[in-house]
């Protein structure tokens, strides 16, 4: 194997490792942000329902 081929395969391995690193972290972040936004929506809906309940009782 020539030096250029060695370097090329090394670059592919390094690229694959970098992709694994960042894709896993980005997927985790994506899950966190989606969870935060869905929870915020749920809380707003529940707060609106809770406010309706209190005004009906009054």
């Amino acid at each position, binding site marked *: 194997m020539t030096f250029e081929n060695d370097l090329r395969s090394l670059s592919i391995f*390094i690229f694959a*490792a970098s992709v*694994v690193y960042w894709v896993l972290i980005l997927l985790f*972040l994506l899950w966190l942000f989606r969870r*935060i936004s869905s929870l915020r929506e749920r809380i707003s809906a529940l707060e609106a329902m809770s406010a309706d309940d209190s005004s009906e009782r009054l």
Partner: protein
Amino acid sequence: MLGNKRAEGVFIVAVFVNILAYYISFVAVHAKRSDIYFLYLHVPPAWVCYMAFTISLVSSIMFLVKHKRSYDVIAENAAIIGLLFGAIALLIGSIWAKLAWGSFWNWDPRETATLILWLVYMGYVVLKLSIENAEKRATIGAVYNIFAFSTVPLSYLSVEFGFSQHQSASEVLPQMSEVVKSALIFDLFAVTLLFIALMLLIWEVKSLEERADMLSIAVSGGVRDDI
């Protein structure tokens, strides 16, 4: 973006510092030995993995001593992040192994011990998800976590077994030039910052989950049996 200014600030700083660390490590090794670049992709996640599980252990002990729910939440959050970085360290380690040793998986003591560590902590998360009663979940989880931590020194010290091909820190550090070492230290700092940012974000998720649960109880007028 998140509503929580502290988490938002730490997250943005962490992203910038990590990009900078990525660039610095690339410059540090590019002109010399490119294969050393794996060091910057493999060591920082392994460092965060061990650190997260250590924080998880300390929090579990604190929970058993003080019975404060926040310690249980920290233990669980740290274990989840430890699992994420453990998976990254294992996957990148196997790519490096293919290059250095010729095969993705060699059943080397370090590989095997780290896989056991990862599975044991996955068991901790599954255990916590499977118990409904919050008090029971926290106590059983904390006790399990203390036993699970025994796999951390097992994984760290596994390179000392005579037949391991994996180099130990004491073997690698003297071979490093000052530039390579400094870049690695900066990388460890950057990834620690990312760990803190992720801890704050998961804390935000747990707080919102708790608030949503409280509100749904208030709206339905029901009584929770898991508090």
